[in-house]
């Protein structure tokens, strides 16, 4: 029994490893695509220096921490692979039928592949973003004892982001074009995910709404935890992430089971 589970886990680990290896082949390309990250970080380094100067803070973060916060939020967002596009296309053109016959869970297969690609992108983008932030604003004072918890928060954030996108991609079972939903999601991430500023800086009503939605747990919360570690914040974040991972997993599984019944295989 235990051996079967180990073997299953190893299977998905191998899928993630292959996905990582595929991305590592294009490492130089990943670094080149980080130019936009440098551009946006440069603009915001100037903005936060002007707005916050030497003593000012927003949501308890000074100019240095604000830039490092943005390094982590931006890196989280731009490192998230477009797995949902592959899934949407497979559902629409029927290629999903080939995957359904294979000896793995369709959802876990894509989650493993998603994690492998995310890791390659995350490391390269973080290296570029951190180097830039270090040169422009100086080092980030990190509470190293809490970084294990922060890593757990990042891992759960990856799962939240994956499940949000994957569940929307599965709408392709019912809708001809699900692209507007991704567009809306990206805009909601911008606002309720706290891409530029921590949601703690928002007016009370918006802040509370952000705490209720999953978007903050995939972007703002782990970034905020890394730049300003606090155990109370950590507890709230982990509880929120676990609730959303569970809820979104159930929704995604239910959608997949219901949607896959609509697949008609015509051969050819």
């Amino acid at each position, binding site marked *: 029994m235990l051996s079967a589970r180990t073997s299953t886990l190893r299977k998905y680990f191998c899928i993630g490893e292959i996905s990582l290896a595929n991305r590592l082949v294009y490492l130089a390309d990943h670094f*080149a695509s980080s*130019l*936009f990250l440098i*551009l*946006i970080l440069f*603009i915001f380094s*100037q*903005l936060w*220096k*002007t*707005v916050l100067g030497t003593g000012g803070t*927003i949501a308890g973060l000074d100019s240095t921490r604000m830039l490092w916060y943005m390094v982590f939020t931006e890196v989280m967002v731009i490192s998230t692979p477009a797995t949902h596009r592959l899934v949407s296309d497979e559902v629409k053109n029927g290629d999903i039928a080939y995957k359904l016959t294979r000896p793995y869970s369709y959802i876990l297969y894509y989650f493993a592949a998603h994690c492998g690609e995310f890791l390659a992108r995350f490391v390269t983008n973080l290296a570029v973003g951190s180097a830039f932030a270090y040169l422009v604003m100086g080092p980030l004072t990190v509470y190293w004892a809490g970084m294990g918890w922060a890593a757990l928060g990042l891992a759960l954030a990856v799962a939240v982001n994956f499940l949000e996108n994957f569940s929307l991609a599965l709408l392709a079972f019912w809708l001809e074009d699900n692209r*507007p939903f991704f*567009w809306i999601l990206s*805009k909601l991430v*911008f*606002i309720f995910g706290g891409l*530029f*500023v921590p949601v703690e*800086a*928002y*007016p009370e009503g918006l802040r509370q709404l952000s705490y209720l939605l999953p978007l903050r747990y995939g972007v703002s919360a782990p970034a905020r935890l890394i730049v300003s570690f606090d155990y109370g914040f950590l507890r709230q974040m982990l509880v929120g992430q676990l609730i959303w991972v569970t809820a979104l997993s159930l929704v995604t599984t239910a959608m997949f089971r219901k949607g896959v019944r609509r697949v008609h295989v015509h051969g050819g």
Partner: protein
Amino acid sequence: MFTAAKRTLKFVLQYVSLNLQSAMEYRGAFLSQIIFMFLNNTMLLFFWWVLFTKIDSLNGWSLRHILLLYAAASGAFGFQAVFFAGSLSMSSIIAEGRLDFYLALPKPVLLHVLISRSFTSAWGDLAFALAVFLLSAAPTWESLLGFIALCFAGGIVMTSFGVIAHSLSFWLGYGERLADELQEALLSFSLYPEGIFSAATRIVLYTLIPAGFASYVPVKILTRFSWPHLGIMILFTVGVALLARFIFYRGLRRYESGNLVVTNS
């Protein structure tokens, strides 16, 4: 000379009309793209709204100035993407040898490439620019006409920059990525107030990446009109357009046909 200019204008207007008719063929998609772009730009203002709940002014820039900045930058990009969208994708046309189509026709090559494409969603940028201007300024007919003229001038600046960036493909081969990133940089800088940038950065923003003339100077003209600013804006717009034309035709001498048979859709 006058007849030639009239003929060219007629040619441009016919292309604009065709592009518009083509976009409106699918009316639902046309309207939804405009609405989505309008909402997209509106959401970008959310950040500034949050920021200005914390501060009163940003080196002399108020929220109203930021709104005008967004109106000017969106208007300039809207003009570029609606009327001269060829400037957003010229690299691939050059690198893949698809200029042959334009070279074989008795029309100005550069102008033809520029007007032959149009982005439907950019009508949403134009609508957004107009709406934000009407909300943030106390508009009169004169100021409204001035705003439209400034957006057009900003659009020429962005188009010219796009032509220069994409013309690098004549020398570099496939330079699409570089050109796209340069254009992204211009648009990004246009959306942030110059007050936040250091003196050295501002020099770059008024020369190499001319965001200053795409949005900062238009905002200055709209808020504190002065003839020198208007004069500089006109001079730069004409100058950069001529420079873009010069670079494109200089590069065109290096162009090699790919003997590619394509359908221009």
